[in-house]
């Protein structure tokens, strides 16, 4: 009964989405206030129905209702409760339901935090988000119904993929989806502005906090995914340029370009077209990502062949969203590429250069990701590996990092090389010296690469640091200055430093990680990068729904015990699938990482040993970036808008010209 209720709630949500999109958009076009005012209630009621539908599916999982096909395929009575809940988004149908629920939540947030916006504009934004909702609800209802019943239910389910039975995977997909779907708000704002023909600075200001918020979630989601892959896949990799990862990375690159381009549009009214285009791209790539990952287009072309309805629906939906918004863009966007006056040497130009670089990098990733798909439709078989992405992506990041350090410093409209040089020369000297020192201290063929990378990262940290210091010194006294700086300034500093931290982690860990694959039995020792790894014991431990072989490995350095690590090889009963649980000794400057391979007979096991310097910095940097984004969102000027909600005109016209 309850699954049918969920199904019914989905249909009701679809009806609400239709009301939410048709009446407000038509009302906005015809100036019909009553029609426009339907947007908020329709969106809220839609959310209620979506919550009911989602809860119904959660209920089916919690109560092990295997008459629901989706539950039978992805759960099992032996599965711990927390994973029965996360199994809801463990496969295609349920993850789409999660997607649509998150869209409902974002839409709800827009209905709450939009009281200061013109009614017509809000109606259009909510209408556009309703249209997206219609697309997804139709997709779920027609091709991927999670509530489908089986007349002959199995006694037990096929279990959740053991890889997904992990706390990281409980939060990673919702986080990532919140990021993806968050760009629908930026998209809605962009389309609403195009529809209304008012692409102005106020529009940029309104959409900025939403975009940054989506970007924060996406950043965290990607970092969580990378961290999960690192500890769960058992061989110490943290980024594989896998199509699934690229699918989330492309919206991130575009989103990063978007939040910077929005800054220029908000402050100076420039790049409006470019910004709108980026907003459209960011959301289109999010859609592409969602579908690529979950529809099976990438993992198997058979999914297309055997369920043509799904594939065709996806293509049509993508076609409508991308094609429709681009046609609207071509029709309504203002004519000139550069509308406001600024000099070649100005912050605008630096921002433009960087958003172009990010977009080019995104295109390179897109090419490498979809090229195998294109070749496959032509009958060939090819894979594009990590070397391609590295050799295209890294050279593009070098100018990006250099320009980043200048961009934060340069003044709007026009600036002078001399002024910048006055301030930044010490940063230049210092980072060059750091690079040279590092290159001479380090050994091996990787020394140059590592030194260059760290030098660029230092340049970024130092230029941000000097900027911060100069601001402080120019204020009356430290405490007052600290208090009066806008939060978005702190946010920017934090995020830029975070980016540099990620770069440091990336170059050092990819150039100086060492590993050893070894045949070992209890009592054996192995040397790696100055550490002695001793396999002390192997025993069998039962788990809730698996059987584990547990290896204890003690790590010594210069005769002292550093840490004791445990790595397990688990065999999950239901699917008879083995899984490796890595043993990690974390540290700020190095991780010690061990994972159990396979039994080789005579009590011998193959064991992987890794020494991974600075690997934590990758995710630490991402955390900094996300915190920076959060600080920027809570900036005073966005909060003031909410306080002064009663007078929308004043907000559009006024607002202190806050510094970024």
């Amino acid at each position, binding site marked *: 009964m309850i699954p049918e209720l969920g199904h019914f709630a989905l249909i009701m949500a679809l009806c609400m989405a239709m009301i939410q999109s048709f009446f407000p958009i038509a009302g906005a076009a015809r100036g019909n206030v009553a029609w426009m005012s339907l947007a908020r209630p329709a969106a809220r009621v839609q959310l209620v129905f979506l919550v009911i539908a989602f809860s119904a599916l959660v209920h089916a999982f919690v109560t092990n209702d295997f008459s629901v096909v989706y539950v039978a395929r992805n759960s099992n009575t032996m599965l711990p409760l927390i994973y029965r809940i996360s199994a809801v988004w463990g496969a295609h149908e349920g993850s789409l339901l999660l997607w649509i629920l998150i869209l409902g939540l974002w839409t709800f947030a827009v209905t709450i935090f939009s009281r200061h916006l013109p009614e017509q504009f809000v109606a259009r934004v909510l209408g556009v988000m309703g249209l997206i909702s219609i697309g997804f609800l139709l997709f779920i209802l027609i091709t991927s119904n999670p509530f489908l019943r089986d007349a002959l239910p199995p006694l037990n389910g096929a279990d959740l993929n053991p890889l997904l039975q992990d706390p990281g995977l409980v939060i990673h997909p919702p986080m990532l989806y919140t990021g993806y779907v968050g760009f629908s708000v930026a998209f809605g704002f962009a389309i609403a502005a195009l529809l209304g023909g008012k692409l102005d600075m106020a529009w940029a200001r309104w959409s900025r906090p939403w975009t940054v918020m989506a970007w924060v979630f996406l950043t965290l989601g990607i970092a969580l995914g990378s961290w999960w892959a690192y500890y769960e896949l058992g061989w110490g990799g943290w980024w594989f340029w896998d199509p699934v990862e690229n699918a989330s990375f492309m919206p991130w690159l575009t989103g990063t370009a978007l939040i910077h381009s929005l800054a220029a549009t908000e402050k100076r009214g420039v790049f409006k077209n470019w910004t709108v285009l980026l907003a459209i791209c960011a959301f289109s790539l999010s859609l592409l990502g969602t579908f690529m990952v979950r529809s099976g287009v990438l993992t198997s072309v058979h999914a297309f062949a055997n369920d043509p309805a799904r594939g065709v629906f996806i293509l049509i939906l993508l076609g409508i969203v991308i094609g429709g918004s681009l046609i609207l863009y071509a029709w309504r966007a203002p004519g000139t590429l*550069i509308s406001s006056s600024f000099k*070649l040497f100005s912050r605008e130009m630096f921002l433009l250069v960087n958003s172009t670089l990010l977009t*080019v990098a995104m295109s390179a990733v897109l090419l490498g990701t979809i090229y195998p798909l294109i070749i496959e439709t032509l009958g060939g078989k090819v894979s*594009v590996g990590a070397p391609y992405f590295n050799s*295209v992506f890294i050279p*593009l990041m070098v100018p990006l990092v250099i320009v980043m350090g200048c961009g934060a410093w340069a003044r709007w409209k026009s600036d002078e090389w001399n002024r910048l040089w006055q301030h930044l020369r010490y940063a230049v000297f210092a980072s060059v010296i750091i690079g040279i020192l590092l290159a001479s201290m380090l050994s091996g063929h990787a020394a140059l690469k590592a030194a260059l990378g760290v030098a660029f990262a230092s340049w970024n940290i130092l230029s941000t640091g000097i900027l911060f210091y100069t601001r402080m010194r120019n204020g009356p006294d430290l405490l007052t200055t600290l208090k009066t700086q806008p939060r978005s300034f702190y946010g920017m500093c934090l995020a830029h430093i975070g980016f540099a931290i990620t770069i440091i982690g990336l170059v050092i860990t990819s150039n100086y990680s060492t590993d050893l694959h070894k045949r070992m039995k209890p009592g054996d020792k192995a040397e790696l990068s100055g550490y002695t790894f001793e396999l002390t014991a192997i025993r069998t431990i039962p788990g809730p729904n698996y059987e584990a072989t547990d290896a204890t490995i003690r790590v010594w350095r210069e005769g002292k015990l550093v840490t004791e690590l445990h790595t397990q090889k688990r065999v999950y009963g239901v699917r008879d*699938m083995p*899984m490796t649980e890595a043993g990690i000794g974390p540290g700020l400057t190095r991780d010690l990482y061990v994972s159990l*391979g*396979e039994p080789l007979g005579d009590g011998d096991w193959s064991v992987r040993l890794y020494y991974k310097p600075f690997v934590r910095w990758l995710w630490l940097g991402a955390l900094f970036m996300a915190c920076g984004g959060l600080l920027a969102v809570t900036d005073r000027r966005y909060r003031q808008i909410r306080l002064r909600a009663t007078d929308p005109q004043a907000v559009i016209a006024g607002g202190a010209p806050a510094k970024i």
Partner: protein
Amino acid sequence: MNVQRRKLVFTVVFIVAGMGIATALALKAFQQNLLYFYSPVQVAQGEAPTNRPFRIGGLVVAGSVVRDPKSLAVRFVLTDTLKEITVDYDGILPDLFREGQGIVANGSLRPDGTFAASEVLAKHDENYMPKEVADALKKAGVKMDYRTHAPAP
């Protein structure tokens, strides 16, 4: 040239140059890094290159896995049910590697017709069967269960 015009020219030049450099990098990287897939039957017919790495895939023949007692070296036979090829690998096999399972290996062909693998991959998802292997098997006439991508019983 006025400022407006100069800026436009600069922007266009910058974008074109950026795209050009990126395309050049991409094409160069593409040529070097594309890995083509060949099934054992294609290798047997001499279609696979002998001078560059490629991918091979198939089912691990039951009883064919031989391990060196001292090191991690392992030798096994892959088949697409029509032809077989011997694969050598020195390293730790993935969790999902087992006899009868479909796997993919990256590496190159030796003059004696065996395959020296630098990497062995088993699909880490609920379908168990790498797409390439499923296709190769289908081409070889094995009926596939479309949902699990495993050979139908």
